[in-house]
């Protein structure tokens, strides 16, 4: 399996001098194509920071991050944005859908931003909504959807540009366990179908059942990295 993301000696510090917090310490990680990786750890262990850096939303203090064979340090802002747009999909705990847009428009949005032709984007948005079982809710705005439905829209949105890497930060954190499991199964299924790698940070042990591999983090370090299936 090819490596689609890699971190080498990754460090991340917040704050300055005595007040600084070491959020990530010497993280060396490789993510392979089509893997479903669960990141487990308590609050403050560095899960979200790792996802943010891999998602190019944050930058490391030191170390190297390579995504799709590209070293982020060598990319300018424009290239980073392009990479994020085309290669990465993000899912958040609180769904983070654009409140003024409908479910359909939320799914369509990443493709619009990437410059996918309108007709093609619309076709794919419908397909994805159908895949997550929300064809009948396409014209509803987030406030008119349940938490589970919103997260399913978020899943569909993350898959819109067929990214190589999907980063999910506590995707079931705001859902009941049954709904959470349903959403994660859906994510697993769809990502597998298009060959995307999923890295999901979670407290939820049930996600482990779906994962190929589990990373455990503590105090900014990866304390274990094991195959679970």
């Amino acid at each position, binding site marked *: 399996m090819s490596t689609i993301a890699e971190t080498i000696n990754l460090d991340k510090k917040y704050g300055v001098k005595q007040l600084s917090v070491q959020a990530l310490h010497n993280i060396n990680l490789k993510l392979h194509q089509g893997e479903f990786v669960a990141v487990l750890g308590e609050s403050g262990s560095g899960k979200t920071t790792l996802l943010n850096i891999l998602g190019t*939303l944050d930058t490391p203090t030191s170390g190297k991050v390579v995504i799709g064979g590209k070293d982020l340090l060598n990319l300018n802002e424009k290239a980073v*944005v392009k990479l994020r747009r085309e290669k990465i999909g993000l899912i958040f705990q*609180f769904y983070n859908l654009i*409140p*003024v847009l409908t479910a359909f428009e939320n799914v369509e*949005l990443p493709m619009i931003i*990437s410059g996918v032709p309108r007709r093609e984007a619309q076709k794919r948005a419908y397909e994805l909504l159908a895949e997550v079982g929300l064809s009948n809710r396409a014209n509803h705005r987030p406030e008119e959807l349940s938490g589970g439905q919103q997260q399913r829209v978020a899943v569909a949105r993350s898959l819109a540009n067929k990214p190589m890497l999907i980063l999910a930060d506590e995707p079931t954190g705001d859902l009941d366990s049954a709904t959470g499991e349903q959403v994660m199964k859906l994510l697993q299924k769809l990502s597998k179908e298009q060959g995307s790698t999923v890295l999901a940070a979670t407290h939820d042990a049930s996600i482990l059942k779906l994962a190929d591999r589990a990373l455990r983090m503590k105090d900014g370090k990866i304390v274990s990295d094991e195959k679970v299936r």
Partner: protein
Amino acid sequence: MTFVAMLKISLLQIKRKKFRTAILIVSVMLALSLLIGLNAGVNGLQKTYHNLVGTSLGYTDLIIKSNTTTPTFSTQTFEPLLHDDAIAAYSYRVQYWMPFASANGQFNGTSGGYLVGINPQVEDNFGSYKIVDGDYASISQALADEGNCVLEANFADRLNVHVGDSLMLGYFDIAEPLPEQPSQTLNLTVVYIIQDYGRTYWFDAKDPTSFARVNSDITVNLNVAQALFCLKPTDTTQVYIHLTDLKQARSVQVNLQNELGSDYVVGNLKATMYESVEQNFAAYQTITYIIGGMALMIAAILLLNTMLANVSERKREIGIMRSIGASKTQVFGEFIAELLPVAFVGALASIPLSMVAALAITSILPAGYVANVGTASAIEFSFPLSTLGYGISIGITLTLIVGLVPALLACKVKPVEALYPHMRRFHTRKKGKILLPTAGLAAVLLGLLLVQNGFSASSSWFPTATALIGYVATLTGAVLVASAFLPMLSKAFAQLLKPFIAQASVVVHRNITLNFRRSVFSYGALAISIAVLVSFSSLVTTAAAYNIAVNKQSIGADMQVWVNAPATFADQLKAVEGVQEVAGVGYISYGQSNMAFNGQQQASITVTGIASKDYFGAIYQTHLTDTLDDMPAEQVYSLLDESNGSIILQESLARNLTAQVGDTIIWSITNQTGTHQQALKVIATADLVAGRWETIAHFAKGYYTAIVSFGDMQSFRHALLKSNVDEFYVSLKPSADVTQVVNDLTQTCKDAGYNPTIYTAKDTLAQTQASFDQTEMLAVSVTAFFVVVGALGITAATAYTVTERKREIGVLTALGMNKRQNRVIIAGEALLLALIGTSVGVVSGLGLSLFAINAIPWWANVPTPSLVMSPFTISVAAVVISVAALLSAIYPANRISKLNTVEALRQ
């Protein structure tokens, strides 16, 4: 939580939100400055005119005049009546038309003037004047010597006499038949030339409330005037009275009138003039209140919108406060407390700016003309503390009242919803979306009705208070009606953002439509302000264009050369290079002439006597409505070239007399020696001559006129001791250099011994244009204030939404939007709102102007004007609106650039 703790939180918020607090303060400050500044400016104007009345009239509070055919009366008649505690001083005068005045001892072609005989012992207190030339300390001192006289500057200029010259006055006994030459003459030395501020007033005994300034006067010692007109030392023509207290003017007037009976008229001069000033300025003050009120209304919308956005942005904070024990009252108090510094600092900061605004307005305000008070040369600067006091009180009270709504909404926020931002709900009330446009439509209809009534009740293009209230209602209504088109407009304008953010422009469009109330407030404030700018300035420019057209007609010719010369002098004037036609005319003024036909009578008719038919070539236009035997106009004009007893009657005059073409009317005049009359045949009627006749509908009431040949007028002119024509109408060749022609005409007159006064159409039109340019500048400057305040509203509201939408922007970044695109999302919203506001403002402003133009009772018989926008207004509006739009977008866009995506997503 204690009040102090609450206040601390409020102050922290203010400190954290410096820019927005500053915007609120600036908006309150701008609106208040406009209100206070405008008021202070009008106060200054009022004070100026008040002082002008005081200066002009000095001690003169009441005037007594004869109401019989004999203008003189004996002081003995009512001397005892003047010994009253209410009367502080009085002065007898003799004021008469002085037919013969000459500097060279010859009375050919000389000018007459009003001779005013005064009592030097008391006169200095009865009016104000400025010494132009002369060595005496006062008029009293100068006229203590009965061989001296004092001339008014214009009159001295006309006679071309200076201090030290000898002036010959000629007179005749009233009992004599009218002489060709004076029966007696008197030489006086000119010792003083003054600029008269109106120390001498004449009033019509038939209408004691109408006063006129006496210009061209020769002031002499009372004894000289009495001798000149063969009067006894106890005879007088007017008594000037000064009261101990002006408040008693009315009662003293009534008492004196009762005592004196109907043979005398007691004129309440000063009180009437003050009342005229008060009445004029009461209307101006109301208008300034309404304009200032409009500015405050826009600031209030801004304030309300910003504070509502503030509540929306801080829902989470409110939720936390409520969850840790803050009561609704305390949340309410916190929001009100935040507005206190805005209200107080805004109000106090407006003081210096108000003074600047007052100074600017004072310098721009046209020094107009009030009744017969005169024209003020400069407007006095006035900044009364009371104006400042009520302005500040209004500002503070309004700010706090406006703050009540968001504060009440803040305390109603549900803690659970507030603590979980992803549970945000859009309160899109469908009812509101129907109610607002419906209410707006009602407001527009009501407003238009008020505009219609306001204008039709006045006789001017200047909006009355009612019309202005109509403006406010119409424009507010238009903004509400436009809310029905908000989705359509926002979607249409969002297309403009597509080159930058493609279909993501839908995010901008949706934010505008889903945040309905905020959007309506935001574009509404700007729309009203732009509409005010567009409608006011276009109203001024349209009125200017109309006045120019009317003035052009009224002037009648390219030039009017006022010179008292024989009619044949026209030939010399016609020889001047560039001159096309010249025709002399003489007038017999309305006070002296009457006409009668078939038992019908009409008094006060001004008759123009034309010295040649060239008159019709020299003037701009004549429109004959009927001619004898349907003869062509040229034939009518030819008939008037000879003294054959023909007359052209003004159409309304003919109607009043029930006379038609072919009828013979009787024209009569009355002078000191009796009544003279002659019969004239009506050969035509006209409704337009030199643009003057029926054209000025407003002034035409009571203004009657006719044309005869100068020859037919000669006997009457002789009866009035006038043998020359009064002026020459001049038309120019198209290639003529107006300045050069004026110089050449002046020289020609001077070479012949005359001192002409020349009015050119070009100058008069330029003066009219300049006066309107000034008014337009004032309107644009004042309304530009409005636009700035309106734009600040969009800035403030959008700036708040940046904080509120941090998470949304974070998500967009996570989805691959770059910083530029994010800036477009936020700035685009501000720009779209500015565009919507501008569109609604321009359309409603122009629409309202078109309506107003049709509602204004345009007073002259020139075509109703079409809407005119001056390049100046268009450029200023374009610049102000562009700056306003940029201003509203730059700050929020700048804030977006500094957004930390990770932090935004954590919220």
